[in-house]
């Protein structure tokens, strides 16, 4: 649904920005893993594609608020970063398919890189409500790019932090620390969000340990609602066939082992409808 939300508060979280927006209908329907899309630039803008944003927190205050986390990457997100309390935002959401949650109280490792960590906090809340044990593994290039370390420490059984420059926690990437975290916590499942390369490596580790892994991908989108067909990635379906599926509509959450990370940005030759299948000529 579409909501004109009022910005309640804005804050900087290290290298990232967070906006809390009053958006009752969206907050009510939100499940962990959903995202929202926001129009940027105001009414007379020349920026016509929406920005897909991660939901970090949902609260029942004022009829329902959502906290959105993003980093400034271009003029659209720069405009968002300039929003102040009482400004209005055009939001559509909640969008996408949420994370599936286990029925039993199992041990879960939540792996987040950069601001991809933000989406894991609502997941952690939902898992803990079900009696699951939650352990966080968060990382980034440097200390100011590790999102949510404090909150993770308060919530989780254990929290492991990694930075590539060694300014916080272990030196290296989240995937360097993941095998020992899985072993130490005797994890039954992995939940991950972050750049494609991180998700590829997280999935590889989970497969090695033979435990299920759910990943939320960050793919650039124009519409967020499944009509523009620009956010596609190659994913293996239940029938074993690879299809180019929309990260916004069929995702953003996928079973990690189903995503063909090595082939993201290409059309694999064996994908359904790949060139060479007799239809190469049209369009």
């Amino acid at each position: 649904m579409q909501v004109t939300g009022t910005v309640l508060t804005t804050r900087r979280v290290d290298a990232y920005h967070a906006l809390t927006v009053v958006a009752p209908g969206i907050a009510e329907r939100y499940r962990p893993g959903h995202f929202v899309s926001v129009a940027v630039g105001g009414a007379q803008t020349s920026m016509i594609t929406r920005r897909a944003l991660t939901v970090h927190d949902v609260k029942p205050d004022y009829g329902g608020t959502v906290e959105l986390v993003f980093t400034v990457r271009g003029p659209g997100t720069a405009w968002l970063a300039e929003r102040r309390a009482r400004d209005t935002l055009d939001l559509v959401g909640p969008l996408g398919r949420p994370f599936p949650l286990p029925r039993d109280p199992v041990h879960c490792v939540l792996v987040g890189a950069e601001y991809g960590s933000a989406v894991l906090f609502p997941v952690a809340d939902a898992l803990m409500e079900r009696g699951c044990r939650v352990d966080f593994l968060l990382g980034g290039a440097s200390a100011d790019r590790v999102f949510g370390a404090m909150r993770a420490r308060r919530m989780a059984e254990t929290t492991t932090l990694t930075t590539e420059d060694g300014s916080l926690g272990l030196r290296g990437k989240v995937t360097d620390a993941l095998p020992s975290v899985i072993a130490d916590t005797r994890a039954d499942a992995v939940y991950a969000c972050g750049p494609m390369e991180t998700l590829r490596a997280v999935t590889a580790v989970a497969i090695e340990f033979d435990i299920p892994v759910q990943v939320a991908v960050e793919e650039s989108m124009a519409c967020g609602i499944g009509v523009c067909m620009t956010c596609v990635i190659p994913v293996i379906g239940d029938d074993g066939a690879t299809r180019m599926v929309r990260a916004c509509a069929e995702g953003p959450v996928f079973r990690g082992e189903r995503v063909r990370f090595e082939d993201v940005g290409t059309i694999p030759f064996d994908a359904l409808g790949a060139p060479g299948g007799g239809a190469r000529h049209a369009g």
Partner: protein
Amino acid sequence: MPVDMRTFLAHVELANPITTAAGCAASGRELAQFFDLHRLGALATRSITMAPRAGRPTPRMAETPSGMLNAVGLQGPGIDAFLERELPWLAQRGIRTIVSIGGGTVAEYSELARRLADAPGVTALEVNLSCPNIEDRGRVFAREGSAAAEVIASVRSIMRYDVPVVAKLAPDVADIVAVARACVDAGADALSMINNPLGMAIDTEALRPSLAAVTGGLSGPAILPIAVRCVWQVHAALPGVPLIGVGGVMTGADAFQLILAGACAVGVGTALFHDPYACLRIERELEDLLQARGFQRLADAVGLAHRPPGSAPRHLLVDSEESSP
């Protein structure tokens, strides 16, 4: 008094002139989560091809000033899956559907028409002529009147007489009127314009083209003036041919421009990416604009900007002299 928004695509009546633009509403179900699709004048499908198509590699999209480039490459399920799943879903709900088709040869377009000829739920058939012709070194059909006409003539001969065949024209051609005329002479019942003009953007960080496919179709408000120009020229040359104006429509005023230029229906595309409710909003805004200017019927505004300077707008005289029945 509400404005009579009905319009005709050849002999097919649409409750209002606003349709989705081909390729901008996926299978229809995506938009149905937001509003009742019956409120559209018609829904245009993505261009259906014979075989399933995976489309182009990503990145497929780049935002540009007041627009975007896309190189999706007609990703779609192919005609079999379309007839099995997508069209019946629309037909069962009674949603007016303009089915768009795309092919690489005249034979492929003809085969698609053959498959669709007996399918229930096809309100009109739109022929996407902006596909590379593999029998002519990949030059798109829409570039040349004779190639476009060959496709249209073949499709027209196959489709049932009561299903209008609409030719979708490209703007980047030397003479759009010549291509339009060739299509009409070949039997097109209506014309739709414009498809995306080709554009390109370069990522100044990566120092490479922004799109994996290098070039892509430009859409959004940046191309509205091109659409208005094309509709104007074609309506001036072929005033009796129904035109669907498409290209960068974001507001009711944008749609009104196309109608005044000669379109009797208006396709909304990229606006849907920005606002899923765009079609309903644009229809409402258009109706308000017509009402504010004293129009009783949308049909009275079609092509009205072509009247010579200084002449009175006829519709206003008619409604003051003649009382309604």
